[in-house]
């Protein structure tokens, strides 16, 4: 340790940290409880299996204690920002992966002390959460994997390195060229070495294989859940989104089991024709900036509690359906092939707008079109938080494509704040009204 001088973080007194943390934590607890209560109220026939996810959704609850206990028994925790971090490697090294992007509104205001307000609120909120030590998973992680996707994420890693070791994983901006894959694979190997050094566990072929199989099972359960949303709404979109999100911090094996159980219950409901809401509710898809529990839940809430009520049947969010949709496809169970498979799963299959190709980010368009067709989506809400350039800029192209197939899309921009819910409500409800009117004709 040459110097304790922080590169970015401002000095803030312990007392202020305490006070801020307690007050934000209290608000957050209230918000989480309220969100869950509202989800319970909105959903008719809410599956019983959701109780588990309601419990895990408590960020300051059971799971925090579990990770704490595991840490005391010698396990390492590795946090990551962006879903490009190779979870399989973390699991293979017997460490716990947690995603640390933050969804607290209040902490984004704290982040303003370090970066200007123009910066994406997801970044500001994560910085703010770190300032006051709010996020249990961020606090518990021994190291962070920072994937250099968008500009915000790149600098976020730099800022957080004031506190923890941060391993930067540079990502090529063009996916489908051989040199990109080589570059990305080298990055994976570096991180592999770093993980091994931190945990002291070697990532062997057998261990990596069983880690891959673990996430494959999770993907299978995850896909089963998304497939159930293709038909009449048997689960509300918010419930499904919560299930998807809990993957970011829950124990993966347990999460898989519980999701399978949820799917069993939902299949039973389909058989008994117990739907979660009115079958007339317009089927909406959300795409754009990630929405992160607990605060950043306002759009799904507005859609599913709106008048008229809509139902989210699909999304293209890296905090929900993109988390696990793509599996690691291993051809031959050799170390090299597994590494290639992991590399391809994270890089190539991603639809993140930080990429481009000969044909632009055409993968994202295909994803959206496929969801619209298979999930029978009637309208798309394009959700962007202020400061999220790449998503904002891709809107024009997506709109052109969706206009071509006569699917209405609405661009909704917002901030990490509770104050604009009223205005958002007007717009979301007008959009839902429009969808209902279209369905009537």
């Amino acid at each position: 340790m040459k110097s304790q001088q922080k590169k970015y973080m401002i000095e803030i007194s312990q007392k202020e940290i305490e006070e801020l943390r307690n007050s934000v934590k209290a608000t957050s607890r209230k918000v989480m409880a309220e969100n869950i209560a509202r989800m319970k109220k909105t959903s008719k026939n809410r599956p019983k299996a959701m109780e588990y996810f309601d419990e895990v959704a408590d960020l300051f609850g059971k799971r925090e204690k579990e990770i704490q206990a595991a840490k005391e028994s010698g396990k390492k925790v590795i946090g990551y920002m962006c879903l490009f971090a190779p979870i399989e490697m973390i699991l293979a090294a017997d460490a716990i992966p947690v995603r640390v992007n933050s969804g607290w509104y209040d902490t984004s205001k704290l982040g303003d002390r370090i970066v200007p307000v123009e910066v994406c609120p997801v970044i500001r909120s994560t910085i703010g959460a770190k300032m006051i030590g709010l996020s249990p998973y961020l606090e518990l992680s021994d190291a962070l994997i920072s994937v250099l996707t968008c500009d915000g994420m790149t600098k976020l890693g730099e800022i957080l390195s004031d506190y923890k070791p941060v391993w930067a994983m540079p990502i090529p901006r063009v996916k489908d060229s051989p040199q990109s894959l080589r570059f990305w694979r080298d990055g994976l190997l570096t991180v592999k070495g770093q993980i091994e050094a931190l945990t002291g566990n070697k990532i062997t072929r057998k261990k990596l294989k069983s880690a891959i199989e673990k996430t494959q099972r999770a993907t299978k359960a995850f896909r089963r859940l998304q497939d159930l949303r293709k038909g009449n709404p048997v689960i509300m979109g918010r419930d499904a989104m919560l299930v998807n999100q809990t993957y970011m911090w829950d124990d993966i094996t347990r999460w898989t089991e519980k999701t399978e159980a949820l799917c069993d219950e939902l299949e039973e409901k389909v058989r008994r024709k117990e739907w979660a809401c009115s079958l007339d509710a317009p089927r909406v898809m959300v795409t754009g900036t990630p929405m992160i529990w607990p605060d950043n839940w306002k759009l799904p809430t507005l859609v599913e509690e709106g008048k008229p009520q809509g139902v989210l049947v699909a999304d293209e969010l890296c905090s929900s359906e993109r988390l696990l949709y793509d599996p690691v496809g291993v051809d031959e169970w050799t170390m090299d092939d597994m590494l290639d498979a992991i590399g391809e799963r994270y890089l190539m299959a991603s639809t993140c707008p930080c990429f481009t190709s000969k044909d632009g980010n055409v993968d994202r368009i295909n994803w959206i079109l496929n969801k619209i067709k298979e999930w029978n989506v009637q309208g798309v809400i394009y959700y962007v938080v202020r400061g999220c350039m790449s998503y904002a800029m891709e809107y024009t192209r997506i709109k052109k494509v969706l206009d071509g197939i006569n699917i209405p899309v609405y661009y909704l921009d917002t901030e990490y704040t509770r104050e604009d819910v009223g205005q958002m409500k007007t717009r979301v409800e007008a959009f839902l009204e429009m969808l209902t009117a279209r369905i009537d004709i």
Partner: protein
Amino acid sequence: MITAGVDLGTQSVKVVILKDGSVVGRGKAFSGFDPAKAAEQAMDEALMTANLSLSDLSHVTATGASMALAPKADSTVSMMGADAKAGIFLFPKARTIIDIGAEEARAVKCDDRGVMVEFVVNERCAAGAGAFIEAMARALEVKLEEMGPLSLKAERASPINASCVIFGESDVVTLIHRQESKPEIARAVFDAMADRISSMVHRLGVNPDVVLLGGVAKDVGFVASLKRKLGIDILIPEFPEFAGALGAALTAASKAERSQK
């Protein structure tokens, strides 16, 4: 069948009473601190002109920013939905409907069946809405009603910033200091605002006929600027500020009809 529409806007509450497809009563009151009370006042006024009582109304639909506060409303409709209904009712060939209120501007695109297919909202900024003209009138020290006629006298326009009411106001002050004439500044104000509105409308595509609704539609200066900017004729109804309430009343009528069936 008699129905009513209540438009609880940010500045005033408007009520329209509709009897078998024609307007029989209108009422207006300033929102103030108690929109619910204002709504009742406006309703009373409308009922009085129509010579009806509250019990005659078979369905009341509310719209506007504070529609949730409407007393005795049977249903609600979004502002964009109400605009589309009113626009098509007033001008059956309308495809693009612009509604500029005190603090919000909206544009709605309709298809040939009169169904709203797309809309945009001037997001979270009063610079493209009536409040902007009001603030600029204040800076110019002229009455709001005089702004329009004044601007028509201008021969050329000086550019000002319409990204923000506050910055706009300081721009106007600069122009005053440069001793530009008042008509020219007034026209600059309208041009800047029309610029903002037209870029909003261009996001939907300008499909004739274009209809302008809302209180700002009464301002001749703004209408002239917007026509220049869009390069297209704009249709304006007789009582543009009541369009939202009219749309709500039309919604109420169709809802009542449906429930009768």
